[in-house]
């Protein structure tokens, strides 16, 4: 949902100079409206991984969890398929009922996957976590984890939902309690070729792990999409 008063950019044609008086209406409808709308729409596409057909690339056209593919996995355990990132998730202040909180932008998520034998079920989990936390976060049932299952070997986008109270079929979001926990400091420069400096960020991967009900059935990941959305 929009946090700007008008839900879109408003070009007033009025410029600020020393001779032009402005009122509170201009501050609200131009400065506040446009800056907050730009910020709402500054949500970034984080993953847009489409796989070419195998005949094009010469590769198999999907990713698998190497452990399952090698036949040493345990049924229903999750194994790593792909990791995208890390990237700094966008975090914003939100005020409701006179309380200001910090929360992350939501993320639209979509997974395309198949079951290698068209019989047994495979389950994919796409979730956000710091790179080092993937192995534990994959087993968490919360709204930053998206789950989808299939028994089909036909390539297609899967239907799934986030694993927390939201139960959203298209989005995930990092719970507010994790924002502070996952915030870290990253070294950078103060200016071009300048002195060392640091920025605070919540650095996360978009991880995709998978499990299989049958150790001989391999999950195939065919596409992944994840894009931020300011949403409330």
């Amino acid at each position, binding site marked *: 949902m929009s946090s700007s008063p008008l839900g879109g950019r408003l070009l007033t044609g009025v410029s600020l100079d020393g001779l032009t008086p402005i009122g509170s209406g201009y501050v609200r409808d131009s400065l506040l409206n446009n800056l907050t709308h730009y*910020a709402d729409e500054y949500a970034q596409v984080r993953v847009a991984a489409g796989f070419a057909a195998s005949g094009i690339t010469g590769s198999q056209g999907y990713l698998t969890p190497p452990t399952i593919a090698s036949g040493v996995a345990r049924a229903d355990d999750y194994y790593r398929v792909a990791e995208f990132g890390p990237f700094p998730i966008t975090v914003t202040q939100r005020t409701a009922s006179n309380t200001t909180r910090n929360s992350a932008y939501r993320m639209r998520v979509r997974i395309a996957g198949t079951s290698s034998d068209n019989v047994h079920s495979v389950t994919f989990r796409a979730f956000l976590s710091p790179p080092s936390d993937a192995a534990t976060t994959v087993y968490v049932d919360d709204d930053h984890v998206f789950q989808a299952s299939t028994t089909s070997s036909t390539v297609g986008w899967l239907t799934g939902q986030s694993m927390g109270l939201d139960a959203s079929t298209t989005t995930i979001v990092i719970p507010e309690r994790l924002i502070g926990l996952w915030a870290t400091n990253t070294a950078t420069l103060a200016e071009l070729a300048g002195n060392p400096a640091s920025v605070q960020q919540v650095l996360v991967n978009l991880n995709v792990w998978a499990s299989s009900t049958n150790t001989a059935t391999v999950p195939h990941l065919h596409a992944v999409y994840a894009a931020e959305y300011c949403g409330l």
Partner: protein
Amino acid sequence: MTGTVPFIRPAPDESLIRIGQPVSAVTFDALGGLANWLHGKGAMLVPGVCPERTVVKTTPEVFRFRAKTRSSAIQRVWALQVRGTVAGASVRIRAPATTGTWSPYYVATDSLLARPRLVYIEDLPIRSATEKELSIEVESSVQNVTVEAISCYEQDRPSLAADTDDRGIDRFTLGSGQPMFELAYDSVSAIYNSMNAADARRVGILHWTMGDGAWTRVTASSQNLFQLAVPVLARKLARSATTGSVKWSAYCKTTGGTASIKATSSHSGVNDTLSFTNTTYAWSTARSFTIDGEDITAADGRKAASWDELQFALTGPGGANTASVKSISVWDDS
């Protein structure tokens, strides 16, 4: 004094702005912070792609992308996932390709191992907002490795300079009791100047690359690229906008004749065709294309609760000639 960039996007309180009433310094300070955040927060240039490309040992591989960068960026952060076949092996990476500084990394082989993050920091020589190639090169010395994922973002800025590239606002000049000036980077007018010059694009929309491999086609009939068309969604600008314009380009060549790539949007059926005749690899002139725009009233932002998806189809030149495509890039240029 430089403009400090907040870590968290500020939320100016609309309820504090009352028509006919004075606007407080608290509001102007929050607006100044938000303006600095818009310029200082880095954009995603290359959303995660999966080349699934094997880099043959001792043969470096270059992965190319194209986008219009933002003028406030001074570093790019490349993140790669690379899988080896021999435990304890390493690769080296540099960006930009051929001129960057090599940096070595350890790679893992199995999904259970703690996968090391391959993060490469590319220091930029200048700040610029121009359309350009973004490239990264991977080399493995003792084994073949598979590049599973690549992404790139502009590093966030801790503070901004008071110039036309950064548009940093000195928030001290917005404080309570401070006089109001008409200055480029100070006081209330600086908020307007920053807003007017805001480059708040979601830069990277969709990329595809085969590194130094190529998608080839001889026959003069089309072949789709993706197994499934990939979701896309442009940012919303005007209040009434329901679509957005993006740019796209391909790194391609043909051995002779005319080949073409067609981009098709699933939701609108809108398509655009790029024809090429160049016989050496080059980025095609960027073309404009319309895709769905974000619906900011929807719970997930999708227009009409549907996914707009992009597919590319290559048509060969026919005869004895071959069209080859190494990369395709789609980005927000508006």
